[in-house]
């Protein structure tokens, strides 16, 4: 069982914050997006941040990118740079917090932790930004002191913009340290913290990539264009699902879903299996936007092209016909004037084969989220927070509140999915979302 899903009790946060100080942070992997972004974030409150990479030149490059990212040259006045060969032992020994953001490979990370374990001060904190590797597994073989001071601190990319952050304790992590880092990140770094269990993909990626992968699977039969429209902004997200996979990178997507598929067989197991066409295309070098295209791309003349997963060829977007999706237009028009409840009730009530596809994905998202309570977080508010603050998607509770309890249950039922007990046993009129600081309307984007 987890100690607490939500943030550390705010009443005690000032005591907690004074329980230790973070004056020097070392970033490992400071030339990568997560390393340099997190490094820039730390400079807002920490007087000294050291960027380390394989070479000093790479670390310098990370710093230059960090300056551009937050648009302030003053980042540089708080950062020094160095290489693993020349500077690692010295700066890691000096650091209050060692933040590991190297490539997402277990043996590589373990190699770094072995080095850290040899030189770190016994009281320094070691955090990993891993988005899904097991914290307990990463800590295996390390000293008692290391394991006591080691935890997962999962920022989302880009960390200077997205505040949702997962905090994952290992089985030996000192609970007082977890409380401290929770308060530090909340109060000093302005993060929206969510404590999760040490399960595959933690909370956010487990729930989020389940929906994304389900959309990738559906794209094989229905085509990416139609799926992205059906599960588009009007269903409670800024960016459409398959465009998100392209942006994240197919390789990252694969690493996350493969990890969950292997380690967390659950009631939605098959929706987490990477579709074969994606594996085939990846073998040919397709990795999404960073390789020039994935589900969507551009031809040499700049025209928009769309993948046909059946043939694994691209076709001109303009050549694709669009079925009548009048219900999406109707819902979008309601969202546009702020009538989100009317919009989402119309969504649940929409009929026809296309509405059924969209309803099944959204019902699956709600059902899957509520079924993860007790497994990845203590309560639904943890999953709500990371989906809202981390993914910028309508959190599952917001969808239930907006659609209405009964129509939600009917929608889940109709999709052939199991209705979570928290919904089945709730009284009509119960509201599930409990964060008054969030404008829930922002999630319902008019298409």
């Amino acid at each position, binding site marked *: 069982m987890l100690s607490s899903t939500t943030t550390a009790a705010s009443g005690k946060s000032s005591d907690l914050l004074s329980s230790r100080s973070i004056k020097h942070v070392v970033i490992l992997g400071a030339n990568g997006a997560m390393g340099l972004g997190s490094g*820039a974030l730390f400079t*807002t409150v920490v007087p000294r941040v050291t960027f380390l990479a394989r070479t000093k030149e790479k670390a310098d490059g990370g710093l230059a990118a960090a*300056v551009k990212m*937050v*648009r*302030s*040259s*003053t*980042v540089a*006045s708080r950062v020094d740079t160095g290489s693993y060969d020349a500077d690692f032992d010295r700066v890691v020994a000096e650091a209050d917090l060692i933040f590991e953001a190297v490539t997402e490979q277990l043996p590589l990370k373990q190699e770094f932790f072995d080095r850290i374990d040899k030189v770190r001060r016994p009281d320094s904190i070691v955090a990993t930004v891993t988005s899904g590797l097991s914290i307990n597994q990463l800590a295996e073989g390390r000293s008692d002191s290391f394991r006591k001071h080691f935890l997962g601190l999962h920022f989302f990319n880009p960390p*200077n*913009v997205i*505040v949702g952050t997962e905090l994952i304790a290992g089985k030996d992590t000192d609970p007082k340290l977890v409380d401290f880092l929770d308060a530090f990140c909340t109060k000093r770094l*302005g993060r929206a913290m969510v404590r999760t269990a040490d399960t595959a993909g933690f909370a956010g990626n487990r729930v989020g990539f389940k929906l994304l992968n389900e959309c990738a699977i559906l794209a094989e039969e229905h085509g990416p264009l139609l799926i992205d429209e059906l599960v588009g*902004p009007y269903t409670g997200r*800024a960016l459409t699902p398959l465009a998100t996979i392209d942006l994240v990178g197919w390789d990252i997507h694969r690493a996350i879903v493969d990890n969950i598929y292997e380690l967390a067989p659950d009631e939605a197991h098959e929706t987490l299996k990477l579709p074969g066409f994606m594996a085939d295309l990846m073998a040919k070098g397709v990795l999404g936007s960073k390789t020039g295209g994935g589900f969507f791309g551009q031809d040499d003349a700049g025209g928009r092209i769309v993948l046909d997963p059946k043939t694994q060829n691209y076709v001109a977007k303009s050549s694709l016909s669009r079925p009548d999706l009048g219900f999406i237009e109707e819902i*979008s028009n309601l*969202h*546009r*004037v*702020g*009538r989100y409840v009317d919009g989402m009730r119309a969504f649940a009530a929409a009929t026809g084969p296309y509405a059924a596809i969209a309803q099944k994905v959204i019902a699956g998202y709600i059902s899957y989220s509520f079924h993860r309570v007790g497994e990845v977080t203590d309560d639904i508010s943890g999953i709500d927070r990371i989906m809202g603050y981390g993914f910028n998607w309508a959190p599952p509770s917001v969808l239930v509140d907006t659609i209405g309890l009964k129509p939600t249950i009917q929608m889940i039922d109709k999709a052939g999915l199991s209705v979570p007990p928290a919904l089945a046993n709730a009284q009509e009129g119960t509201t599930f979302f409990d964060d008054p*600081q*969030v*404008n829930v*309307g*922002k999630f*319902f*984007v*008019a*298409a």
Partner: protein
Amino acid sequence: MAQVPEVYVLGGYQTDFARNWSKEKKHFVAMMREAVLGALDETQIEPSEIEVAHTGNFAGELYSKQGHLGAFFLEIDPAFSGLPTARHEAACASGSIALMAASAEIEAHRYDLACVVGVEQMKSVGPGEGGDFLGTAAWYELEAKDIEFPFPKLFGKLGDEYDKRYGIKDEHLAEISTINYANAKLNPNAQTRTWYMNYDHAMSRDEFNGTIGGRIHISDCSQVTDGAAALLVASPEYAKKWADRVGVPFESIPRIKGWGHNTARIRFDDKIAESANSEYILPHVRSTVTSAQKRAGIADTSGIDAIETHDCFTTSEYMAIDHFGLTAPGESWKAIEEGVIAFDGSTPINPSGGLIGAGHPVGATGVRQVLDCHKQVSGKAGDYQVEGAKNVQTLNIGGSGTTSVSFILGT
């Protein structure tokens, strides 16, 4: 003179000023709707109880090609059918003017419960076009036409006038910016709450903090913001019944203790010419501040626990400091150096983050300021709560110091 009834502020709601409603592909009525329904929810008041509605908005015609914003109130809820409504415009003071109208009607015993909503959707256009639209708050033909970003330049001139009469340092303006950004980090509705800012950045002069007009750099500016804020204001009779209904002591309900309202000539140079022999650079602004305090029976700013002022630029807040009387005229820098205006100072300015940190949806700003006063004096400001705040004052300015309005809220 007959006794006029006091005007009570029951509560309100503001949208998250970090949102981009154009990216959400929303019409501004969605923003009005979220603000008004949020205010009703916050106060546990039914839509059918509202008797009149006033909308503050600067330039819907330009940003959204839509006038007649009072009428859009009816699109919020069917219960508003037939409701008397009006839209009010006084540039960046539009929201305060809407509240002036609502409170005057309550004082005149016309209505017992009014809703005031300020709204502006500004991200519908690019920065150049938006800057040009804002120029219509000045004398457009004489001060803004064919000028890139006219308003930063006008408020740069305000700094120049301080420089001429008293001297002014960039370091003090940078400190004003730093404080507003830092306060905004405590405000969950502030537009800049996740932005990167520190004093050194505010003092930097490279590509990331370029000049917008004279001494005004990016870090000296308020933001281009989409946002709405709503308030429910009531007569004593309604407020008493409401207090019983929701279970709060009547005495704990904040009321408008005083107000001030003045207009100066619209052209900046005319204002400066008029004040040549005054110790205050914008004497009508000074008069707005002091007349609000006089009406509230408060001798001077030492009776004010916090201020929500109009920092459209750091120079406007610099001006507000001495015009509030926190220092002698021309000595605003002293209050900055002594920490008077800091969050934990004796008279914190903009605990919300102000227009620089919290954001500046033009027509909503005056309403947002009063809402923040309400939060402060009722102890509901969360992380940006000023301990023990009893009387909090606003200063909302339209144009280059042209229309100024001030309210004092207290219990």
